[in-house]
């Protein structure tokens, strides 16, 4: 138990990054199929990251710029550490017994804030606009997300992720089916979380170059891409834990996370991008109303 515990603590960030990056590769491939083409190899994103790690030069704009990717990845790994990856007898719990859902909700922001600060120091107005848009949109999708989370916490009268997982002991008890409104609200929020179209106002290439990361290159971008893969994994696992009752083994974990990965992907393929205020008001309309319906279901 002890050695495997330590081993998983060391391994999990790498597993997360690899899984996240591979999903992105598969995602690119699926997008390519919809677009009538072959698409890149599945491991293209991993190759990209390797390439970025092998870049010989990198420029920095200052301390915060230098630290930002490090801090971001710190935030993501820390989040991962407080997340139950697998449950059951062969579970991988890491430090998840030492935190709860509120901690997860807040520590997830750590990395984003660090990225925002680094982007800020890059001095590029496009980065600043990207951050401004991202934070604004965050307030948008946080509304349905928070409603869904609070619904879950009140429904099970706990803030511990473990208890929420335990309550979904069988297929029919999954929160997906048990509290469908909260699930739908959270799903909308998830679209915003993942930053896929139509909610990719942050990087919006045709508008603000590539937004916050536009000054990052070489090793910094490598760390950021790793972080991106890992963060996607973290978000997926969190949703699986909350709405699909966690996973008992890696196969089911991969299947469930991939299901969640596909949803924003397919929405993104066929939709253009919202303008920022449209995205915010979108989140404040139907997803919030659906979330509040979920509330009523729990309260009544």
């Amino acid at each position, binding site marked *: 138990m002890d050695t495997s515990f330590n081993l998983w603590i060391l391994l999990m960030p790498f597993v997360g990054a690899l899984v996240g990056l591979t999903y992105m590769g598969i995602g*690119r491939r699926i997008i*390519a199929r919809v*677009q*009538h*083409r*072959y*698409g*890149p*190899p599945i491991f*293209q994103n991993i*190759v*990209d990251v*390797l*390439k970025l*790690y*092998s*870049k*010989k*030069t*990198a*420029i920095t704009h200052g301390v915060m710029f230098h630290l930002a990717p490090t801090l971001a990845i710190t935030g993501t790994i820390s989040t991962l550490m407080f997340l139950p990856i697998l449950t059951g007898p062969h579970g991988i719990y890491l430090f998840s017994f030492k935190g709860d859902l509120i901690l997860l909700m807040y520590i997830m922001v750590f990395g984003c804030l660090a990225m925002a600060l680094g982007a800020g120091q890059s001095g590029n107005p496009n980065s600043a606009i990207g951050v401004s848009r991202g934070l604004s949109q965050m307030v948008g999708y946080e509304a349905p997300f928070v409603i869904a989370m609070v619904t879950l916490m009140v429904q099970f009268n706990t803030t511990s992720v473990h208890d929420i997982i335990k309550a979904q002991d069988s297929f029919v008890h999954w929160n997906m089916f048990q509290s469908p409104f909260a699930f739908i609200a959270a799903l909308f929020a998830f679209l915003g979380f993942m930053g896929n179209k139509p909610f990719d106002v942050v990087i919006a*290439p045709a508008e603000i*170059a*590539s937004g916050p*990361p*536009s*000054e*990052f*290159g*070489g090793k910094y*971008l490598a760390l950021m891409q790793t972080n991106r893969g890992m963060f996607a994994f973290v978000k997926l696992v969190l949703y699986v834990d909350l709405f699909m009752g966690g996973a008992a083994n890696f196969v089911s974990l991969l299947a469930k996370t991939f299901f969640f990965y596909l949803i924003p992907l397919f929405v993104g393929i066929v939709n253009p991008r919202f303008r920022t205020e449209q995205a915010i008001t979108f989140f404040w309309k139907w997803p919030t109303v659906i979330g509040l319906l979920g509330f009523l279901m729990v309260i009544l």
Partner: protein
Amino acid sequence: MKEDWGKEAGNIIARWARKHSLWVLAYGTGCGAIEIPPTMTSRYDAERFGITGMATPRQADVLLITGYLAVKTLKRVIRTYEQMQSPKYVMGFGSCTINGGMYWDSYNTIKRLDDYLPVDIFINGCMPRPEGVIDGFIELQKLIDSGQANGWKKYQDNLEWYRTNQKKVIKNWKMPDYNW
């Protein structure tokens, strides 16, 4: 001995990764830019080879000079090139980058791209077909694999020479001087 081995393995991986992930800067400098969309989209699908467009020079690996360069553009291209991170590659695209092409007597376009930037590979034609472009990329991959695509080193080593050429054409040189 052991260190050398590690270094060698690292180099092989790095070369392999660089080869299979070429991020092209989205910069249509000339009329050749019209053949880039077909190259990148469903018919020719350059993404199969890991070739993707990138928005900013900090992230890009390949600078594709799509055709003639007006002097005004040359200035921007030089700045853009210098903002890219090494290793970086320059592809001259179309006859006009080689010898002026159609515009051999135009007062506003440069005639030889390699006087101003270290070109790793030229693709000839006016304009090259998407197949030609992809072929060019594959040749570039071969060069990267064999370690010959080191135009960026050449640029660093012969900066003086390039600068002289650049300043000869660009009359008002108002750019910050870089050190690598």
